[in-house]
């Protein structure tokens, strides 16, 4: 007699079944031990016990909390997914406004800059699914969805942030960028940002590096021009 799914259910529901199984288990049984090790029911309880062996201080991870709060809040901008639209986006933003570091940010419309020559341009998705270059003013209607094209100096992980006026940047996604020119993509297609709940000036930041970096380093890079991380941004104004 060994534990299997049916026996397991009976043991927990019928104590009379448990006695012979208890005697069997007490003798030691590799087959049953392997079965128990694979059952998920006790995982959490075992971890709770083991982790209780060493009490830990509970300082608040403020940055982590802010990131989590942004994920939980229903009013926050939602990353959007576009499929099979990369070509049309490339056509639109290929001729878009691309500013490199050092360029004046007086060019109307989409603006980008970078601490390591990263450039970012955006296009708006129309209800038809096609993409449209942003207007010269950079103004977009509320509810617009933006997609992005990046010229990256590095091949590696990237973090995308959204920043509202007078608020700190909030992380939206973790992606990868390829060195050179390419669309900002996530696992299943193009990455986009929905501005349905936004109003006024909004900046989308893209931070990338050849090796993994944490969110704190990304925020430092946004705040500090001296960071080794590549940083690019797009500024738009969401109409009321």
């Amino acid at each position, binding site marked *: 007699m060994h534990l299997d799914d049916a026996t397991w259910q009976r043991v927990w529901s019928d104590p009379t079944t448990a006695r012979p199984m208890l005697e069997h288990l007490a003798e030691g049984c590799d087959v049953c031990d392997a079965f128990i090790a694979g059952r998920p029911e006790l995982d*959490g309880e075992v971890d709770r*016990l083991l982790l209780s062996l060493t009490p830990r201080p509970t300082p608040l991870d403020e940055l982590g909390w802010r990131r*989590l709060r942004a994920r939980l809040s229903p009013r926050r901008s939602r990353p959007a997914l576009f499929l099979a639209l990369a070509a049309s986006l490339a056509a639109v933003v290929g001729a878009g406004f691309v500013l490199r570091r050092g360029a004046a940010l007086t060019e109307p419309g989409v603006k980008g800059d970078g601490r390591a020559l990263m450039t970012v341009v955006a296009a708006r998705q129309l209800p038809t699914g096609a993409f449209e270059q942003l207007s010269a003013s950079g103004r977009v209607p509320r509810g617009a969805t933006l997609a992005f094209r990046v010229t990256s100096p590095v091949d590696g992980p990237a973090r995308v942030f959204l920043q509202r006026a007078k608020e700190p940047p909030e992380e939206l996604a*973790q992606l990868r960028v390829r060195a050179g020119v390419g669309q900002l993509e996530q696992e299943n297609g193009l990455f986009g940002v929905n501005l349905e709940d936004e109003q006024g000036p909004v900046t989308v930041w893209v931070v990338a590096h050849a090796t993994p970096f944490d969110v704190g380093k990304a925020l430092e890079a946004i705040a500090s021009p001296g960071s080794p991380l590549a940083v690019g941004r797009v500024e738009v104004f969401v109409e009321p």
Partner: protein
Amino acid sequence: MTEGMKDPGGQIEAARRGEESAYRALYQRYRPGVVRLLEAFGTLDFDEREDIVQDTFARAFKSLSSLSTPSSFEAWLYTIARNRAKSALAKRSNEDRTMAEFTSAAVLEVPPVPESLQLEVDLSVVRDLVARLPSGPEKDTVTLFYVEGQLSAREIAEKLGVGKSAITMRLERFRARVKRELMLRVLAGRV
């Protein structure tokens, strides 16, 4: 007593009502445990670990209504974290993508912990299991990770001069012993 140290049952009820301060308090209280749990996975890097921490809490908070008893919150949270870690590792290695996706989708369908396991179990049982381990690499690893509780699996691997996977396997082997002992005790209390 800080806000994060208040009665977790009350905090969970408040979080179910959508009170942000309760989310914050629960995050503060349980984040160190989740991080420590993930540190047992020697092959997870820092970024992956932090992402799983975020994912674990986001999923747990969004599914609090499915938690039958607030007292099982901690064990439930750890189950989600463990499943997320396994899913992330499976996905990364691409050994079994289908399994990874299945695990990811099913992560919130955590089986309910039997009521009898929600009793406080004397930690001396676990300490005794550690003490009874024969001297050797497994005991050294378990003592460093669970008893002394300072080093991650990666750091223990460096300290002992072995691979990260070996440390994770030793910890998993000990977890299996604890799980078996726990089941024996629970069953003994029911017959």
